[in-house]
Structures are given as structure tokens and as C-alpha cells.
């Protein structure tokens, strides 16, 4: 009855222990391209003392060169079920967060924008930006360039856009590139008015490099906006959320996508990402002007659902 689906080799899963954090340790990423004296203010970070540089891949430590291909494998395998899995894992709430994210940016309020949506493979944010500009401001000149390192995710995005009115228009373009090193020929400096990255930056090997590239491609006056999973503030809510993350999400991956390892990576990578104030500081270090180092009005970030996700913004002056 179930002979058509066969595995060629037995599938060994991650042999490490499934760990659950008591609390987050602030992780300071090594600024590899910066001056050779790294400000090592916390206990862990990119390990420079070994022969090769290492970084984190969820709770594993991996050589830096490897992280990119490991992340690529994860997203190759989740691409076709990405949207279904997002809905299942967040019980549909990710849609609300993305709507909120785009609504706060108000694309099209002051004229058409050239936007770039990085790590935006399946086109969730790009579609929302274009729809918002069109519906609220009758703007059909705003354009979005969707950039992703993973071709499979871009293919899914392209397929989705074929069902919309933006297909084959200059309003949408799909480009494959590494957010840490976008080629200058394709992405000249000082081009974009709005740079968005939603639920993608934690998968990048070097967050400071991504921020530097963002600074480069934005015009003076352009906005940087990042929507990402972050640290929950309330301790009780945080422990419930942790339980849910580590118990339910990998199981949903097993059930719906037949892939536990990728979803285990996903929940672990959320825990390894710097908390809100740290990340805001990194944005400032890249040259952006942000609000104060606090949450809310006038602050550098806004928490959604008490910190499950948060929106960081900055402006290039």
C-alpha cells in the first residue's frame, strides 16, 4: 500500500540533543569586515580562535562557509510547502504581522517608491506592498525587486505572482542574489527608497554584512525595515511560547512536510538571533539613524505580540 514512496537511504536525523533554552544568551556577531579588534562583550559569538571561523546554525556550531549551503538546503526543502507551513505554525498569525508591517511603512503615501524586498522568495511582502500602494493611493508606479539567495523560493514567488495582476509588469522583478554581497552591477548604490527584509535576516551568516549592503543600496532618505522573530518580554508567555516552539513546530514539520530537521533548525535559529536592543544597536552601527533604544513610539523597534516578532526600522541620512 505504501510502496511507491521509498527512501534510498535511511534518514539519520540530527544526532545532537534537543535542547531547550532557559534564557537567551546575548549573542554578539563578529564584525568580520570591521577593524581587527572585535568587541567581544558576551560569552559566545563567531569563534575566531579556531583555524576556521565558525558560526551558529540553530544550536549547532558549523564552519562559516557551510552555513550558507545548509540554510539553502533547508529552504530548498521547505519551499514548496512554505506558505502552508507558515500558516500551520503560526496559526495564520503571520499574515497579521505582515499586514501590520506593510501598513506601518505606508508605501505609496508620498509618491511611487522603488522597493527592494530581500529574502522575500515567495513574495509575501512584495505583494502586500504593491497591493497597499494600489488600493490606498492608486499608485501603479511603485516597484518591488524581490531578492533571494534560493532559486526554489523565487520560483514559488514567481508562480504566485503569475496569479496576480503584477505579472509581466515593470512593478515586479525577481533576482537571485546573496543579501550579504549583492553585485554592484545589478544593484547599484543609492537606488532604493525602501529596503524590507521579513523573517529572513536570522538565516544570514553575517548580519552586519547584510546591514551594510542595505545601507549601500538605499538612497539617502531611504528606509530600512526588518520584520523578524525576536525575544518575548513576558517570562510566562515566553515559556509557553518556547514549549510550543520546541514541541509543536518540529512535529508539524514532520506531519505536514515530512521534514523535522528543517523546522527544528527554524525554531533554534530564532533563539540564536540577538534580542531587540542588540539588533537595534547593530542597525545603528551600520550607519542608519534609528529611534531611541527602546520599544514603541520614538523607539528603534516595535514588538508584535509582546516580542514574538518585532519590526526594526532605520533611515539612511
Amino acid at each position, binding site marked *: 500500500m*505504501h510502496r511507491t514512496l521509498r527512501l534510498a537511504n535511511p534518514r539519520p536525523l540530527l544526532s545532537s540533543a534537543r535542547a531547550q*533554552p532557559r*534564557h537567551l544568551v546575548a549573542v554578539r556577531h563578529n564584525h568580520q569586515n570591521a577593524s581587527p579588534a572585535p568587541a567581544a562583550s558576551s560569552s559566545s559569538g563567531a569563534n575566531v580562535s579556531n583555524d576556521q571561523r565558525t558560526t551558529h546554525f540553530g544550536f549547532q556550531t558549523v564552519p562559516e562557509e557551510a552555513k550558507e549551503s545548509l540554510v539553502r538546503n533547508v529552504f530548498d526543502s521547505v519551499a514548496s510547502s512554505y506558505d502552508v507551513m507558515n500558516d500551520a505554525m503560526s496559526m495564520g498569525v503571520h499574515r497579521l504581522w505582515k499586514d501590520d508591517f506593510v501598513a506601518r511603512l505606508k508605501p505609496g503615501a508620498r509618491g511611487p517608491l522603488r522597493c527592494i524586498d530581500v529574502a522575500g522568495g515567495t513574495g509575501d511582502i512584495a505583494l502586500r506592498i504593491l497591493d497597499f500602494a494600489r488600493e490606498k493611493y492608486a499608485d501603479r508606479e511603485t516597484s518591488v525587486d524581490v531578492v533571494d539567495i534560493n532559486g526554489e523560493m523565487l520560483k514559488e514567488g514567481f508562480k504566485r505572482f503569475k496569479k496576480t495582476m503584477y505579472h509581466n509588469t515593470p512593478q515586479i522583478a525577481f533576482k537571485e542574489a546573496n543579501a550579504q554581497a549583492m553585485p554592484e552591477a545589478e544593484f547599484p548604490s543609492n537606488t532604493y527608497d525602501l529596503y524590507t527584509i521579513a523573517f529572513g535576516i536570522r538565516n544570514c551568516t553575517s548580519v552586519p554584512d547584510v546591514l551594510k549592503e542595505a545601507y549601500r543600496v538605499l538612497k539617502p532618505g531611504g528606509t530600512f525595515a526588518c520584520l523578524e522573530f525576536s525575544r518575548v518580554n513576558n517570562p510566562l508567555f515566553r515559556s509557553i511560547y518556547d514549549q510550543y516552539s520546541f514541541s509543536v513546530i518540529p512535529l508539524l514539520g514532520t506531519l505536514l512536510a515530512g521534514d523535522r530537521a528543517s523546522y527544528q533548525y527554524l525554531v533554534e535559529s530564532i533563539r540564536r538571533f540577538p534580542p531587540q536592543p542588540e539588533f537595534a544597536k547593530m542597525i545603528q552601527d551600520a550607519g542608519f539613524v534609528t529611534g531611541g533604544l527602546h520599544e514603541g513610539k520614538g523607539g528603534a523597534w516595535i514588538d508584535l505580540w509582546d516580542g514574538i516578532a518585532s519590526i526594526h526600522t532605520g533611515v539612511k541620512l
Partner: protein
Amino acid sequence: MSLAAASMRAPRRTARYLATLARANTAGRPHARWQTRAVNTQPAYEGHIPLNWFEHGFLTLGSAFMALVNPRRADMVAALGDLTSGPVLPRLRDRMLESPEGRQILKERPRINTHTVDMNKLALLPEGTFGNAYVTWLERCGVTPDTREPVHYVDDPELAYVMQRYRECHDFYHCILGMPVNVVAELAVKFFEFANLGIPMTGMAAAFGHLPLTHAKREKLFRDYVPWAVKCGSSAQSLITVYWEKRWEQNIDEMKRELGIWSPPVEPRWPKPLSEAKLAAEKRAKMMENQQQVSS
């Protein structure tokens, strides 16, 4: 390509690579504060995924639902088997310990896949032997003994092996009962396995697997095969104790007598006629002999 199949490709590479790293990393990995847990969740064997009671229940319900909705999800059927076989596996293990053959299996823990079983050697065995019958059966049904989904959710390593052994021996049960791999035959074998071994998953498959069948097929199943399967299964020796890999040369009729198995009353429908399968086997045997002659 099905969703599950496509999604299983990449994480295998990832998981294999990470397993290599983990082995290299465990030497000097510092104990990080955020890796402590109150409950021990270290995996007990490769592929083991420890679950707490909530996850156990969630996955049981979820995999039952997914297996019903999409029976092609072999991993879901396997997961359900792992999760529901709790009380039965110790009994099977004890049955194995009671027989000398079973004790040998538990000691040596043989695995069955295309690497451990030499198909070509089996094809050269004389007709009437179990090895030859097995290869003929594979040929007739058009299947190979590729690896089944490994066991993940059984906590004790020995019981996990017993479960794995059952899964890998499933094809041998087909062969010795003389049943092909169509749905009716599979269900008949499931009835046999439930009567013989008592594994709950086989009982569930037997109880619910016939529902999607047409009326005619179901009637045929219950008229021709189920009474035989249940009688044969309950009176035969517990097949989990049989060391199949040491019995390739044994005459198959003698083996059936020894184990207490007899043929079904009605000959089932085979996808390939026996004559064609025999021809293919002979061709392969000749090819093997030529190869041996050339190399020597």
C-alpha cells in the same frame, strides 16, 4: 514529485552533514547554559527522537490523520507504528529471547537492505530454496528490498531494533505466504501479522484498510483470505524469531512445514506470471555466471 518525497531530499544532506559535525564537535563543545533541560532528551540510538507525553499524543493523532488522508506517506504509517506499538514490543522481544534463533538475532542485529543481502547470490540458488523463492517473488512483484523508514519514536534501543526487524522482514512474510503486493494481498498479510505478532499498527491497518476497497474486492478479501490468514497466523510460530538470512538454502516447503504455515486456499493475482519471472531470474543467473567466468 510528491510533496513528501521532494521535502525529504535536502534535509538528508543537511542532517548527514550535521551528524558529521556533531561527531567532530562533541569533543570540545563547552556546556552552554541554554542547553540544560530537566528531562533527559539525549537520543538513545541514531535516528531516535525522544518525545514527551504531549508530543507523543499529538504525533499519534496527527500521523493517524495524515496516514488516512494520504496512505502514500510511508513515514506517517511508520511513525504511527512506532508510537502505538509500546506494550507489544517487550512481549515480542521476550518471545525472541525464548528461542535460540531469536536470541541470535538480538545479539547480531542483522539488517536487511540491498547492501546486506546479495541478490545475485540468491538468484543462483537452486529452485525450491527459500532464497530462490524470495528473489523470484521480488521479480514477480517488481519491488526491491530498499530500506524502510527507520524507527524514530521507540525509546529503548533494543525494542527499536525489534520494530525495525519487523519492518524489514515484512517482505519475507509476503514471500513465505505466497502473497503479492496488491491491496487485497497486503491486507491479508496484515491480518496474518496481527494474528501472529499482535502489533497494533497491523491491527489498525486490518481494521480500517479495507474501507476504501470496492465491494467486490472486500468480499473476496474476507471470503478467501482473512479466515486463512487469521488461522494460519495464530497457529504458526512467531515469525519475528526466524533468522531468515541463515535459511536461504533451506527448502521452502520444509520451512513452511516447520513454521506451521500453509498456502492460501485461493491463488492470488500476480502482476507478472511465474514463467516470466523465472525467465528473468535465469537470465540474471547466467549473466552472473558469465561475469564470474570473465573475472576469474
